[in-house]
C-alpha cells in the first residue's frame, strides 16, 4: 500500500507535467484548428530564458518576464508559421512550418546555451516531505498547483472576459465570429501567444525537476501531444485527466510489469482512444461539413 501510494503520487506529479504542456496544444487548436508542433521547444526556450535570468533576480520575479517572452515567441510562431498557411487555406502547411520553427528554435538554443543539460536552481527547499506516506519534493507539488492554476486562469479568462468570449466565439465558428466584427486573425495570434506563454511557464515550472537543456522539449513535447489526443483537443479537463492517466500508466506499469515496458500502455491507451473515441475522452466530436 505504501508503495502504491508513492507510485500514484509520483505518477500524478509526472502526469501534471505532461498536462500543462498538453494544455498549450489545445489553446491554439481551439481558435485556429492548428497545432504548434514546436510546443516542446516553446517549453524549452521558456526554461532556458528563465535559467539565464535566474542568476540576476529571484525565481518569482522571472515568472512575469518568462511569460512575456513566451507570449512574444508565440506571436513569432503564428506570424511566420501559421498565418501564411491559414491565408492560403492550406490544410497542412502549418504542420511543416511549426515543426521547422521548432527545429530552428532548438538549434538557436544549442548555440546560445550549449548542448548540455543544465541544472535549474529550485526556488523551494530541496528536502522531500511526507504526505500520507507519499514522499514528494515541494517542487513537484508546485508543478501540480501551477498547472491547475494556469488552466483555471485561462478558463476564467475565456468565460468571463469579453476577450475570452471572442476566443470562444472564434473557436466555435470562425466565419460567424468574423461576421460579428471579431478580428479573428488577432484572436488566433493571441491564442498562440497564450499557448506559448503557458508552455514557457511550464518550462520554468518543470525545469528544477527535469533539468533544462536544448533537448528537454523533444520527449516532453511528444508525450504531451499524446496526452492532448487522449484527453481531447478541446477540453481543459481532458488535458488534466489525460496527463494523469499517462503518468500513472507509466509509473504503475514500470513497477508492476517491467521498467522496460513502461511506455507501452500509454501508447496502447492512445490507440484505444483513437479507435473508440477519436475526438478524445473529453472532446466533442467535430462534424466536418464539406
Amino acid at each position, binding site marked *: 500500500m505504501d*508503495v502504491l501510494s*508513492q*507510485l500514484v503520487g*509520483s505518477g500524478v*506529479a*509526472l502526469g501534471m*507535467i505532461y498536462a500543462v504542456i498538453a494544455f498549450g496544444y489545445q489553446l491554439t487548436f481551439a481558435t485556429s484548428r492548428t497545432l504548434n508542433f514546436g510546443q516542446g521547444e516553446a517549453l524549452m526556450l521558456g526554461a532556458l530564458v528563465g535559467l539565464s535570468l535566474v542568476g540576476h533576480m529571484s525565481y518569482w520575479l522571472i515568472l512575469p518576464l518568462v511569460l512575456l517572452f513566451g507570449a512574444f515567441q508565440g506571436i513569432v510562431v503564428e506570424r511566420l508559421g501559421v498565418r501564411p498557411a491559414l491565408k492560403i487555406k492550406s490544410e497542412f502547411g502549418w504542420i511543416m512550418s511549426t515543426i521547422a520553427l521548432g527545429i530552428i528554435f532548438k538549434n538557436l538554443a*544549442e548555440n546560445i546555451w*550549449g*548542448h*548540455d*543539460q*543544465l*541544472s535549474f536552481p529550485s526556488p523551494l527547499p*530541496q528536502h*522531500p516531505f*511526507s504526505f500520507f506516506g507519499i*514522499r*514528494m*519534493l515541494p517542487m513537484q507539488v508546485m508543478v501540480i498547483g501551477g498547472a491547475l492554476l494556469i488552466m483555471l486562469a485561462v478558463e476564467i479568462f475565456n468565460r468571463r472576459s469579453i476577450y475570452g468570449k471572442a476566443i470562444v466565439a472564434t473557436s466555435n465558428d470562425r466565419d460567424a465570429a468574423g461576421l460579428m466584427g471579431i478580428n479573428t486573425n488577432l484572436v488566433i495570434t493571441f491564442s498562440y501567444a497564450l499557448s506559448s506563454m503557458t508552455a514557457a511557464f511550464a518550462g520554468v515550472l*518543470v525545469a528544477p*525537476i*527535469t*533539468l533544462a*537543456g*536544448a*533537448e528537454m522539449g*523533444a*520527449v*516532453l513535447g511528444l508525450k504531451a501531444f499524446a496526452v492532448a489526443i487522449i484527453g481531447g483537443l478541446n477540453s481543459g479537463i481532458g488535458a488534466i485527466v489525460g496527463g494523469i492517466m499517462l503518468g500513472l500508466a*507509466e*509509473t*504503475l*506499469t*514500470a*513497477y508492476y510489469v*517491467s*521498467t*522496460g515496458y*513502461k*511506455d507501452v500502455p500509454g501508447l496502447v491507451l492512445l490507440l484505444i482512444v483513437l479507435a473508440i473515441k477519436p475526438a478524445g475522452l473529453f472532446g466533442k466530436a467535430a462534424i466536418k461539413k464539406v
Partner: protein
Amino acid sequence: MHNTLKAMIAALAVCTTAAFAAEPIKIGVSGPFTGGSAPMGVSMRDGVRLAAEEINKAGGVLGRQIKLIERDDEAKNERGVQVSQELINREQVVATLGFINTGVSLAGQRFYEQAKIPVINNVATGSIVTQQFLPPQFPDNYIFRSSANDSIQAEMIAEEAVDKRGFKKVAILADSTNYGQLGRDDLVKALARRGLKAVAEEKFNIGDVDMTAQLLRAKEAGAQVILTYGIGPELAHIANGMATLGWKVPMVGSWTLSMSNFIDNAGKNGNGARMPQTFIEVPANTPKRKAFVAAYHKAYHVDRIPSPVSAAQGYDSMYLMAAAIKQAGSTDGVKIREALESLKAPIAGVIKTYSHPYTHANHEAINKADVVMGEVKDGRVVYAYPADEKKAPK
C-alpha cells in the same frame, strides 16, 4: 623565350610537388558534440586537438601537418554511419579517432574495416567494440581502443560493491541503449562469477525524468547498493530520485558517473558515487598529467574538464596514432595497422606510458591495472582510495 617557358614549367612542377609533400595528413574525429553525451564528445575532441597542436608545433608527422576532420555523430547510430562514410569516401581520412557511444561505434566502424582504415575508439567501452572483426572471418582487425572496456569496468564495479564493501543484494539500473544493455550483460556476468544474481534489473530510457518506479522496485527487492550503466542526466535523476524517496544506498557504476552533467545535476545527492577511471583531473599526480590539465584549462578557458577521462583518452589516442604513422613511414591503412600492432618506441601518454600497447590479437591499450576507482566528492571526482593517488602510473 623558349627557355623562359621551360623554366616556368619547371618551377611550377617543383611548386606542385612541394605542395603535395606538405599536404596535411587528414585524421577523422567522430563523436557526439551535442546532446546528453556531449561532455564526453567535446572533451575527447578537445583532447585530440590539444595533442594534434603539440605534434604540429613539433614539426608534424612525416614532415606533414595533421589536419583533424571533426564530425558530430550526435550519439545516433544512423548518423554515425553517415559520418563514417563521409570521412572515408569524401574526406579520405588516413585514420579516425573517436566514437563515444558503443552503439554508434558498432554501427559505424564496419566501413573502416572494409576500407582498411584503422580506428582508435578512445571512449566507447562496450566489450564487443574491438571484437566485431576477428579471424578467421576477418584476417585483420582495424579497430583499436584506448579506453577501459566494459569487461574491465564491470569487473571493477562488482569488485568494489561485493568484494570490498561486502554487499550481497545488488540492483542494476541500466539505460535502454546498446551501451546500457551491453554493460548490464557484463555486470550480470561479473556478479555470476561471484555466485550472485542481481535482486532487481531495471531499465530506463534516455530523456526519462522520473525514476520512482525503478528505484522502488530495487528498494522493495532489498537492494543494498545500486549498480548503474547510463549517462549523466539520467544518472542524476537516479541520485535525485533516491533523495526524494528518502532511500539512500551507495551508487557504484560505470565511468559515466564522472560526467559533469551527472555531478552538477545531482549536486550533493551524487556525493559518494564511485566509478572506474583511467584518469583523475585533481590531484594530477604526475608531471605529464599536471602539464596536460594546465594546457587543457588554458586552451579552453575552463577550470574543470567536462569529462577528464575522455579528454585524456582522446589526447593519448592522437599520440598513439601519430606514433604508428611515423613508424609506418606511410599513410597507408594496412601499414599503419601493422605499425599499431607492433609499436616499438614507448609512447608517453597522460594515462600511462604505452609500451607495446597492441598486438595482432590484442587491440586493447588499457588493462585493469591502469584503472583506478574514483569517487564524486563536492563537485569533483577524487581518488576513492588514497593509495591509488600515490601509486604513479607505469
